[in-house]
């Protein structure tokens, strides 16, 4: 089996507020809504994902932070209750997910072969991080597609941003090889916010949208510049300015998911489809898709 391919990539941020605003049965706290433009953006993404019919969703989350290497979920069935340590008032979610262990192992091995330190996570009591869960819920609340969960090695913070993102580039290339070798039709999810400047106090109630706006105007301008470039498909230009964007907008893409996803897709100069942009406690979040089937870069099912 060697005809696997990446069929799409999504920029799929993970503010737990979006789950809270939606009031799914898995989440304990109840809200009166909120953050509708972003939640409706995810509705578009969900419809597109339904048409893509992938075998597997791969998600790289900045809230599973590892120091020794890049880790991969490696237990077939994981379940539990995930409570967000920062927003426990908003996110207390009962999850149950199936891991594509074969693909995870292939990713782990390929990345190791390419020189990265890697590790499989085999502990059945492991608590999956809220970033992974929020992104997966927002893109596919049915939880009926197997997943590969990938940690965010702290290299962009421990080393320089550029050195860290070089590792994420290798990780992305290894992910692509693993997908091709295992024959999967895969969708990639980069679980990242853009500008990450945020307010330090929550409104009461948290879903009071009269209080929601960009925390930092310069950061907002950076987000618009980056989204504009992404919508035009100027990907090489995006990656030229990425370190500056990270520094000046405190952008969460520093943690690596964005670079991992584009490296895996081979940095296509392809316009991304923006489904929506919105702020969450002041941070900038965009839901975007790069559909490689529509672009003729991958085959339909």
């Amino acid at each position, binding site marked *: 089996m060697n005809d696997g391919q990446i069929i799409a990539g999504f920029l799929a941020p993970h503010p737990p507020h979006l789950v809270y605003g939606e009031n799914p049965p898995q989440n304990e706290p109840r809200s009166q809504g909120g953050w509708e433009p972003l939640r409706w953006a995810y509705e578009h993404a969900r419809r597109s994902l339904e048409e893509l019919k992938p075998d597997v969703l791969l998600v790289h989350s900045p809230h599973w932070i590892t*120091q*020794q290497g890049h880790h991969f979920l490696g237990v077939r069935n994981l379940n*539990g209750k995930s409570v967000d*340590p*920062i927003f426990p008032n908003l996110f*207390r979610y009962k999850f149950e997910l199936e891991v594509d262990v074969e693909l995870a192992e292939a990713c782990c091995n390929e990345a190791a072969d390419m020189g990265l330190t890697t590790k499989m996570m085999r502990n059945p009591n492991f*608590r999956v991080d809220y970033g992974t869960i929020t992104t997966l819920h927002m893109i596919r609340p049915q939880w009926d597609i197997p997943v590969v969960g990938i940690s965010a090695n702290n290299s962009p913070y*421990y080393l320089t941003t550029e050195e860290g993102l070089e590792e994420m580039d290798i990780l992305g290339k290894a992910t692509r090889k693993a997908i091709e070798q295992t024959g999967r039709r895969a969708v990639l999810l980069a679980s990242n916010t853009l500008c990450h400047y945020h307010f*330090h*106090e929550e409104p009461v109630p948290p879903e009071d949208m009269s209080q929601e706006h960009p925390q930092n105007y310069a950061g907002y301008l950076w987000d618009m510049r980056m989204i504009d470039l992404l919508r035009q498909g100027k990907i090489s230009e995006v990656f030229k300015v990425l370190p500056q964007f990270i520094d000046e907008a405190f952008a969460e893409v520093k943690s690596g998911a964005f670079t991992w996803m584009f490296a895996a897709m081979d940095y296509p100069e392809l316009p991304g489809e923006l489904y929506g942009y919105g702020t969450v406690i002041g941070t900038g979040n965009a839901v975007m898709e790069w559909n490689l089937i529509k672009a003729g870069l991958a085959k339909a099912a």
Partner: protein
Amino acid sequence: MSVVSAFLVPGSPLPYVQRDNPPWGEIAAAMETTGKALAASEPDLIAIYSTQWIAVLDQLWQTRAVLQGLHVDENWHEYGDLPFDMKIDVEFAELALKKTAEAGIKAKGVDYDHFPVDTGAIVASNFLNPDGNIPLAITSNNVYHDWQMTESLGRVAADSASELGRKLAVIGVGGLSGSIYRHVINISEDKIADSAEDDWNRKILSMMEQGDTEALAKACPDYAGAARVDMGFKHFAFILGAIGGNFNGATVHAYGPLYGSGGAVVEFDLD
């Protein structure tokens, strides 16, 4: 003074989950020794400040009466589970919340089932309060709080204990130098990854042993930067705040590597 004992301990799970590895076993043994010293000081409660409980919006205090469960460290999951069973002194936590706000720091209580208690707090509690008999107060490390704010949190803990007439043991949970091995090593050969950081660690520990608080106050900012110290060494700031900035000396029960980073088990002499 309400504070009857104070300790600086590492929050790495490695000595707890793999104590048969000699470099980590020394730290594990020292943690147990320290637990005995803590018990001998006969505190009514223990206040834990752990660098690994990261907060962003507010200063958080645990207000759930009982915390029980099984934790798996996100980096060291292959070494097994960290069970925990903790009693929280809720009356103390509620007062500390009030006093934190009075100190000008926005604070919030945390009372949620399955809240992810951090590795450092669990390791410290399991080693130093092995039977769980002594109630705890656990507070977070807000990443936006500086040294002075963290010292004031230590003062809040001491003042709260004083107002309630409680004898308090204080534990600052966190590492020393922060350079780590990013690749897999033979753990039996673990050592401090950077010799300059090793020198810094030893210098700081020596100042603690001598009780040279003036020199420490001057050295800590440089140390934090030069040795990539865990969270700017704020766990020590919490201790200093709680004990009023002074101690007579300290016993370093162990100092060693934790996958390249530095960790020490230190008991401060408050008499």
